[in-house]
């Protein structure tokens, strides 16, 4: 029997959130955290959490698992459970709608700010805009982000300034387009980021790198942006 302690909050019934303990029979198997949640759902059908792909692709089930942000569907119990106890809380710092479901609005707003799409004012070629393999390679480690918000909600700088600091996820995407050889808006993009908060609130704490379930490195991308901003200023 595994003890699972879950953060519960029902906006119409509860004044305040509380932790509720469940006992779950895992059958001695090394289940994924999401499997355990599904077992909990059998015990209490009112439990709310997001999930979709169940294989680490959609990014909907980011949550705080035994103190560390991660995707429930690809986190095996063996990687997180201590003393036979699993503690599930919603991602930090964003408002809780219900149980493990958070309001990602603020996170998406920051994403929107970086204009996460290709900007190119030259006439479109007949077939496609070509890139050399080397140019394409620059996007590796950037384009794989699934916007799960594990990183930004683990970032102390984002906790304190969620409205002004773009956060690791948004900045990783900002760099993804800054680094794209087909994008011609580099200068405008940099100008948009050039203020004390958007980029420079990052203090290299690296919580983002520690938690990213896709193994990406926002800190490094932020370092590149910072260098571009500094080069531009001189």
């Amino acid at each position, binding site marked *: 029997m595994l003890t699972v302690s879950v953060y519960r909050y029902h906006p119409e019934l509860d004044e305040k959130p509380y932790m509720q303990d469940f006992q779950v029979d895992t059958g001695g198997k090394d289940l994924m955290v999401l499997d355990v949640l599904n077992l909990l759902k059998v015990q209490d059908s009112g439990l709310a959490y997001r999930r979709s792909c169940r294989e680490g692709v959609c990014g909907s089930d980011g949550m*705080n698992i035994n103190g*560390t942000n991660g995707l429930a569907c690809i986190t095996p119990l063996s990687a997180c459970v201590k003393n036979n106890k699993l503690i599930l809380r919603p991602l*930090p710092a964003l408002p809780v709608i219900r149980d493990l479901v958070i309001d990602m609005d603020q996170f998406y707003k920051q994403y929107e700010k970086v204009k996460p799409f290709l900007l190119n004012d030259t006439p479109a070629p007949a077939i496609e805009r070509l890139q050399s393999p080397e140019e394409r390679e620059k996007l590796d480690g950037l384009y794989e982000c699934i916007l799960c918000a594990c990183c930004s909600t683990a970032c102390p700088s984002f906790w304190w300034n969620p409205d002004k600091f773009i956060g690791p996820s948004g900045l990783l995407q900002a760099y993804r387009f800054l680094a794209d050889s087909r994008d011609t808006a580099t200068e405008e993009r940099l100008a948009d980021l050039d203020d004390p908060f958007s980029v420079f609130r990052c203090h*290299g704490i690296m919580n983002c*790198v520690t938690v990213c379930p896709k193994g990406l*490195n926002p800190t490094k991308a932020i*370092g590149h942006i910072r260098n571009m901003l500094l080069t531009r200023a001189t």
Partner: protein
Amino acid sequence: MSDKRPVNLDLGTFKHPLISMISIGHRISGVILFVGLVFLFCLFDTSLEGPAEFASAQALLQEDFLSQFIVWGLLSSLGFHFSAGMKHLVMDLGHGEELETANNAAKFVVGLTLVLAVLAGVWVW
């Protein structure tokens, strides 16, 4: 309803990786150093007032455990602040942005701080 939404920001329930502890520690030690300077300046001020005061300030540093402890604490904070600061500088230059190197650097900072703290202890007592 929405303005009542709770937020999970219960720091005690999160795991804090060593790297992030060093980063926050760097700031805390900075504050400690700043406050500590006040103490040192008071002491310095006293010692400048005359030979008798100088002697008493000296005695304080040589015999009073509490002041010695404060001085040691300040020196250790300085050691930590210095090593963590160096790490930040190196990182700003674009090195050690991989998780593994950063983790090793964090351990190195802790190690260096311990060594510096011991040295400071030897020097004070």
